[in-house]
């Protein structure tokens, strides 16, 4: 479970870097990107097993990023983060191939549980 490569994509830099650090503390290999383009580049450079992706981002939106990830690397598990109560985006994301979605602020233990489920679900 440890040594999982995780990529965090969120426009809130403070959030994403801190969360990455916390995951690092728990033994994950977590990297952070603050926009969709950077995120996609980083996936190309070093493909992670799990991407944690914010839905609401300026520029390239989370769902668009999700589509591109799934187009190129369908094996990557994507867990979406939404800041909005509307689960419309969450459900849409799951239809596009996301594993699940979480609402911010997130509970790190819950996130890890979801990641574990995602890995286990792999055929």
């Amino acid at each position, binding site marked *: 479970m440890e040594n999982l490569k995780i990529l965090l994509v969120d426009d809130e830099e403070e*959030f994403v870097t*801190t969360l990455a650090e916390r995951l690092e503390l728990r033994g994950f290999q977590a990297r952070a990107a603050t926009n969709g383009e950077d995120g996609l580049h980083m996936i190309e450079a070093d493909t992670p097993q799990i991407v944690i992706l914010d839905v609401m981002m300026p520029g390239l939106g989370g769902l668009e990023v999700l589509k591109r990830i799934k187009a190129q690397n369908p094996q990557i598990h994507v867990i979406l983060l939404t800041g909005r*109560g509307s689960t419309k985006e969450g459900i849409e994301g799951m239809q596009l191939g996301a594993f699940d979605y979480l609402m911010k602020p997130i509970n790190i233990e819950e996130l890890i549980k979801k990641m574990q489920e995602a890995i286990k679900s792999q055929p």
Partner: protein
Amino acid sequence: MNSKNLWTRFTKGLLQNADDDTANRYRILRRNIFILMFLITIVPLIIMAVIYQHEYQASLKKEIVNPLKTLANKTKHSFELFLEERLSVIRFIASSYSFEELSDQKTLNRIFKTLMDEYCCLIDLGLINKKGIQLSYVGPYEFLGKNYSKQSWFHEVVVKGNYISDVFMGYRQFPHVAIAVLRRTEEGRYLILRATIDTSKFDNIIASMGLDQESDAFLINSEGILQTPSRFYGKILDQYPVPLPMGNYGPIVVEEVDPQNRKMLVAYAPFAKADYIMVLTKQRSALLKPWYTLRSKMLFIFAISVVTIILVVFKLVDTVVKRVKEADEKRELAYREIQHTHKLASIGRLAAGVAHEINNPMAIINEKAGLMKDLVAHDDQFRKKEKFLGLTDSILQSVERCKGITHRLLGFARRMEVQLVELDVNELIQETLGFLDKEALHRNIELKLQFTDNLPYIFSDRGQMQQVFLNILSNAFAAVEDKGQIVITSWEEDSDTVGVSIRDDGSGMSEETISNIFDPFFTTKQKGGTGLGLAITYGIVKKMGGEIKVTSKQGEGTIFTVYLPKKAKIGPGE
């Protein structure tokens, strides 16, 4: 108030939806429509009745006037014929006999006897010479040698050739009429033959008219002196009390009021040769009897019509105004609902925006505090580790609370995700009560469940339905005192609907509170109330195609009633 003001007020009240005092407005509306309808139905009726009365009276009068005139004329002719007959027989005698023969008392006696046999009513007969001296006389009086030259009738007969006197009382107090003719003999001598007639025949003629009790017929002369007795106006030679019409006239009918204040129709028919006027009077009331009968019948019908119209109009107006009122109320309700929905929608959008904006910094706080906790937790050297962990936990808990609030806000706003499953409402309520069991036990609140067994399942969203009942129950718990009572009842409202009521014996609510109770952010709780619970409940119930109603009385308690369709009809959301 002048008529213009009244009219303005009237039309304003009738046509304009003045939304000032509502109860008053419907009262005015009702009154105005009533007056209007009453007028447009009654006025033509009245006009018709008046015209009919007028026309009928006119034609009736004509029908009465003409026969009256004819009868008067006919009777006048009878009189004239009678008098003319007497005149002509006297004239015949004057022509047939010589002056000498007529001046002979014996011959005159013979002639008079024969006349008495042939013609009734002759009293006497006499010859008068040119100087006015009575030369011969047959009759009851001693007139022989009497000089008439100073009397007016003598001059009249000399000038006109014949004469008919007014009625006069003879010596024996009998009404008489004197008639006289003048003849000029071949020798150029004047011969005046004069006869007196008993007027009892006049009475016969009048009797033959066959008059009824209200009618009167008599003769008068041009001065209005009665020539025959009258039923109403006295005996012979009395003055007829009604002024005569002026001027020369043929037979006419006039309306008169006699000294006894009777309204009369009077026919006057003046004689051609004598100074008599035939008078025929009839009381109007008698003449118009058929009219009065008809009028009372018409009045009766009129009254019945008016009463019927009033009743029908009243009922009609009542129905119409009720309908208008209902329509107004429905419109008002629909409008309020739309307003409410709009309010919810805009507040929802605002809440969603706010929640989202807050969620991001909250997420940062969460992660920073989390990291702080992680770092301290892994650092065994950290001096005030326990205290620090307590602080970060406290931050994280606060974040959790904020999350709860923003999630509720978002939950209120968002398009609700619905998962329809078969639900047993009774079981669902039992389950929901599980959240509140402890509080009920603690506060000694009696929970009374009046469930209908075998209640049909509803097809709806479990979580949302739970939220509905939880919100209402929380309010009920907040409303009741310790040791209070909450009664939950469930029933099958109809084939499509299940009803649930939650009644508490708490403090109840004011009208104002009730009207705001489903508005977002409206709360009466001193602290801790977001004012979203019942707004969310309302939103969910509406979205599921159900109804929620509140009745409350201050000091007695509140009843929330929820009607849920067996198959949730998901309405449009945000």
